[in-house]
C-alpha cells in the first residue's frame, strides 16, 4: 500500500480555515480564561470565606472533570434546562474559558505565593501603603513569574480545543476529520493535521523554556 500525501495539498485552504478557527478560539479563551483565572486566584486567598469556598469549588470541579463532558454539558444539557438553543461557538467558548480559568488560577496562585516574605517586610519598613505593596511589588512580580506557566497553559488549551470538533465547530480537527472521511485517506490527512498542530505548538513550547530561563534569571535575587 502506498500513501499519497500530495492529495492533502488540494485541501490546504480548508485546513487553513480550520486552523484559523482553532487559533481564534484559543486566543479568545486564553484571554478570557486568564482574566477569570487571575480573579479566581485572588478569590481563593480572599479573607471572605464565601469567595474562597465558591472559587475552590469552581476550580476543583473544572480540574476534576473531563473537558469533553463539560463541553457536552454546555452544548446538550444547558439548552434543555434553559429551554433555548446554545450555539456550538458559545458552548465551546464558555467551556474552554471556564477550563482555562480553573487551570490558570492555579498558575497565578503559585506565582502570588512565590513573593518572598522578606520583600513584604521591606515594604512595611519603607512605609509603603498596602495598596502600593500590591500594585507595585506583588502584582508585577506575580504576573512576570506566571508568564512561562501561562504559556504552557495556553499550549494545552490549543491542543484541548480539538475537542470542540465534537460539537460540530469547524476547527482544524473537524475539518481534518471531514476531509479524511470524504476522500477515505485517514492516514495522510490525519497525519498532516497532527503535524500542523505540532508545528504551531512546538515553537510555543520552546519559547516557554527560553522565557522561563530569562524570567528566572531576571527575578532571581
Amino acid at each position, binding site marked *: 500500500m502506498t500513501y499519497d500525501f500530495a492529495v492533502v495539498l488540494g485541501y490546504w485552504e480548508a485546513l487553513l480555515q480550520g486552523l484559523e478557527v482553532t487559533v481564534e478560539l484559543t486566543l479568545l479563551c486564553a484571554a478570557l480564561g486568564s482574566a477569570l483565572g487571575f480573579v479566581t486566584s485572588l478569590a481563593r486567598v480572599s479573607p471572605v470565606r464565601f469567595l474562597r469556598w465558591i472559587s475552590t469549588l469552581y476550580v476543583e470541579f473544572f480540574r476534576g472533570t473531563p473537558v469533553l463532558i463539560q463541553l457536552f454539558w454546555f452544548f446538550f444539557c444547558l439548552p434543555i434546562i434553559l429551554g433555548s438553543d446554545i450555539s456550538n461557538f458559545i458552548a465551546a467558548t464558555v467551556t474552554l474559558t471556564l477550563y482555562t480559568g480553573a487551570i490558570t488560577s492555579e498558575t497565578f496562585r503559585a506565582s502570588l505565593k512565590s513573593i518572598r516574605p522578606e*520583600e513584604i517586610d521591606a515594604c512595611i519598613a519603607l*512605609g509603603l501603603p498596602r495598596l502600593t505593596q500590591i500594585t507595585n511589588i506583588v502584582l508585577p512580580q506575580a504576573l512576570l513569574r506566571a508568564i512561562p506557566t501561562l504559556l504552557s497553559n495556553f499550549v494545552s488549551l490549543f491542543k484541548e480545543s480539538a475537542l470542540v470538533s465534537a460539537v460540530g465547530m469547524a476547527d482544524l480537527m473537524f475539518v481534518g476529520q471531514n476531509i479524511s472521511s470524504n476522500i477515505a485517506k485517514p492516514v495522510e490527512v490525519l497525519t498532516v493535521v497532527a503535524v500542523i498542530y505540532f508545528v504551531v505548538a512546538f515553537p510555543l513550547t520552546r519559547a516557554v523554556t527560553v522565557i522561563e530561563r530569562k524570567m528566572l534569571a*531576571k527575578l*532571581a*535575587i
Partner: protein
Amino acid sequence: MNKSMSNLSSAKSFSATDSTNKSPTASTSGQALVKVSNLHKSYSPTIQVLKGLDLTMAAGERLVVIGPSGGGKSTLLRVMMGLEQIDSGSITFAGQPYITANDGKAKTKINLAVRQQIGMVFQHYTLFPHLTILQNLTLAPRKVRGESKASAEARGMALLTRFGLAAKAGAYPNQLSGGQKQRVAIARALMLDPKLMLFDEVTSALDPELVAEVEQVIMSLAEQGMPMMIVTHDMWFAKNIASRVVFCAGGVVVEEGPPDQIFNAPKHERTREFLDRVFHI
C-alpha cells in the same frame, strides 16, 4: 580593617537632603531616643522570645546588640520596626508613644508617623528584583511622601554616587554582588531621611570578602552622627562601631556597657561564656 577606619574619618555627609541631618546629637542629646519597657513577645505559648526586655537609647548613640542565637536580638529589631506583634510592654520614640501592647485580643498599636522615621536593613536581600536600583530607591519617597519623580531620582543618584554605585542605577538587583545589594538597601532606607537606622545582621549572608564594603558604609553613617541599633555576629565590627554594647540572652538584656567594658571586662558569667565561645573559634 585599618582601611575601614580611615574611610570612616573621611566620610562625607550621607544625608539625602544634605541640610537636615547635620548634627542630630547636638539638638537632642540627653533625651532618650528610644525607650523599650518590659517587652514580652512569644511566637506560641511555649516559645517566648522576649521576656521583659528593657532598653534605653540616647540620641546619637550606636547600640550594638550581641548575644546567642534565639536570644531575642533580631526579634527586638523586628519589633522596633513594627514588623511583629508584642504580648506586653511598650516602646517610646523621642518621647512619643510608638509601640503599645493592647492587652487582650486586639493587635499591637503602632504609631505609623513614628515608624516612618525608622529605617531598617535586613540580613536577607530585600531589594525588589523587578525594579532597577534607582527605582528601588525612589519608590518609597514617591509613594509615601508624594515626592516628584525628578526630585526623588536626583536624590537617589546623589546617594548612589556617594556609595560608588552610580553606574548601577539602571541595573537590576540580580546584576549586583551581595555587598552592592546591601549598600543599595542602606541607600534605599536613607532616602526617607530616617532618624534611626536598624541593621539586622546585614553582613551575615555575605561572602567574607564583601563584608568590609558594607561595614564601611555603616561606619561612615556613624561618623555622620546617625543613631543606629545594630545586631551583628561580627565582634570586630561591634567593637569598632558601638558607643554601647548590649548583651542580650534569654529574652532579656543581661549586661550593657561601653565596648571596652563588655569585651574586656564583662561582669556577668553569661556574657563571659558567650564571648569565650565567640573568640575561641
